[in-house]
């Protein structure tokens, strides 16, 4: 099954309370995906040339300060480390290529969940309500956020197999559905130099999007190629630096509801998530048409 939620703020009030508004939406989707949960928040962008990294280590007592100090000596880093559950956000004073290469070389046991200017990805196995508490999701602000509750069908229940999947700098993907040609695509993408951590089908879709973006496709072109080359069922919610996009496969049998008010744009697998939002009763609600890209982006100040 799986559940997807997304929330895009149109006012400073919604931005300030983004986590407190997204958490009940995610909780409503617990029945659709009880085995793992995850979110991507876009918040507190770092200055240009710096890279915000969300890192994960299986040991909850991992010494993130030691990692930060070593990173500071190598490339420079912000003083503060923000810990959430077994994840931590560190800001490297280097571009993403150098920052990620440094982590991989010096801390191979640390997983990089996301990299970019604004994105933070948190994900873990277990019930969504436990995830919301452990990662203190309600305290997060942000311009927009995506969330996922997973009911695994294609591959193992692991942190790495949970959503969202990073698809590049400040880009991520959550997915409800299943892909049937992911093994062939994974082989093709490996030849193109895309790396994979799991046997998960969604990771292949994420890798596919990463590859197309690397080749210079716009988001519309990426989505057109997905519709052409991915076999299976999907509702995709795609996070970008400035907003999010929704696309469903040409048959569109995986659910999706969109709703919009003057304060927010919300997306969910079921309306009951959206009903938790203030002003939901006045929202314009609709189900997105098949094979059609819907996108909201904020203008950068």
């Amino acid at each position, binding site marked *: 099954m799986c559940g997807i939620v997304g929330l895009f703020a149109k006012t400073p009030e919604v931005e300030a309370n983004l986590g407190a508004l997204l958490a009940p939406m995610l909780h*409503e989707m617990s*029945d659709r995906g009880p085995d793992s949960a995850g979110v991507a928040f876009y918040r507190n962008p770092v200055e240009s040339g710096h890279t915000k990294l969300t890192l994960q280590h299986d040991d909850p007592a991992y010494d993130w300060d030691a990692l930060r100090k070593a990173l500071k000596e190598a490339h420079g880093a912000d003083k503060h480390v923000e810990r959430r559950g077994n994840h931590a956000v560190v800001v490297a004073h280097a571009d993403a290529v150098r920052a990620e290469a440094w982590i991989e070389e010096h801390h191979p046991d640390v997983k990089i969940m996301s990299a970019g200017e604004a994105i933070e990805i948190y994900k873990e196995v277990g019930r969504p309500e436990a995830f919301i508490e452990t990662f203190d999701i309600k305290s997060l602000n942000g311009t927009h956020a995506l969330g996922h509750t997973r009911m695994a069908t294609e591959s193992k229940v692991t942190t790495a197999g949970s959503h969202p999947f990073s698809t590049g700098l400040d880009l991520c993907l959550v997915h409800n559905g299943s892909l049937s040609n992911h093994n062939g695509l994974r082989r093709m993408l490996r030849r193109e130099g895309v790396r994979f951590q799991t046997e998960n089908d969604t990771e292949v879709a994420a890798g596919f999007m990463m590859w197309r973006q690397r080749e210079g496709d716009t988001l519309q072109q990426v989505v057109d190629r997905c519709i052409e080359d991915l076999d299976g069922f999907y509702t995709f919610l795609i996070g970008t630096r400035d907003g999010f996009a929704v696309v469903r496969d040409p048959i*569109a*049998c995986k*659910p999706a*509801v969109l709703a919009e008010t003057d304060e927010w744009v919300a997306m969910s697998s*079921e*309306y*009951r998530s959206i*009903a938790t939002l203030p002003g939901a009763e006045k929202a314009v*609600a*609709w*189900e997105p*048409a*098949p094979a059609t890209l819907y996108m909201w982006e904020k203008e950068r100040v």
Partner: protein
Amino acid sequence: MATATDIEVVDLAVTPLRELNQRLHDAASGGPRSWRIVNPNGAHAIAVGIDAELDVVIEGHTGYYAAGMNKHATVTIEGNAGVGVGENIMSGRIHVKGNASQACAATGRGGLVVVDGNASSRCGISMKGVEIVVKGDIGHMSGFMAQSGTLVVCGDAGDALGDSIYETHIYVRGSVQGLGADCIEKELKEFHRAELGRLLEAAGADAKVDEFRRYGSARQLYTFNIDNAGAY
């Protein structure tokens, strides 16, 4: 002792869903006739399988398959309905005051389903005798493999309307994005005008019979054609 005029209120925030549905099933052999269900909060399978002349009002949004397999009862949903509302309805009436999600009244065999808002894709898929009136628009692939019954759409219809249709009367007031295989526009005869008028009145729809166009089966896909005998 409960009398026929009492309204039985069930709060799904405290009563388990299975208990509610069991009580509604037990009502076939007596008990309260009027029910009000509060705090549905989008739960799936609310009021499924009723087999009695009950009047059930659901105060809020429902999840998947609300009032599925309904027989005899009148079920009103004062909100939006999730996937498959009124699936396989046998008789009675289901009224959705908000929007309905995909596969509204799928495989329904009888009764009336009214949607005040829009219905999403695959509305009336494989319908087998149910009457459906949607006051707004319907999504793509509606009436797919529809076998009998009537689908009335006061707004617009999405792509591939009536794909692989057998025998169902489809009336659309607005535009049709595209017709599916073997679905064609057909003449609105006196019989159809009477049928449409009756349904618009039953649903309380503010529309005139003359504003509608009728669609139905070209009967090229499912009927046996002697010229094709060699293919069997």
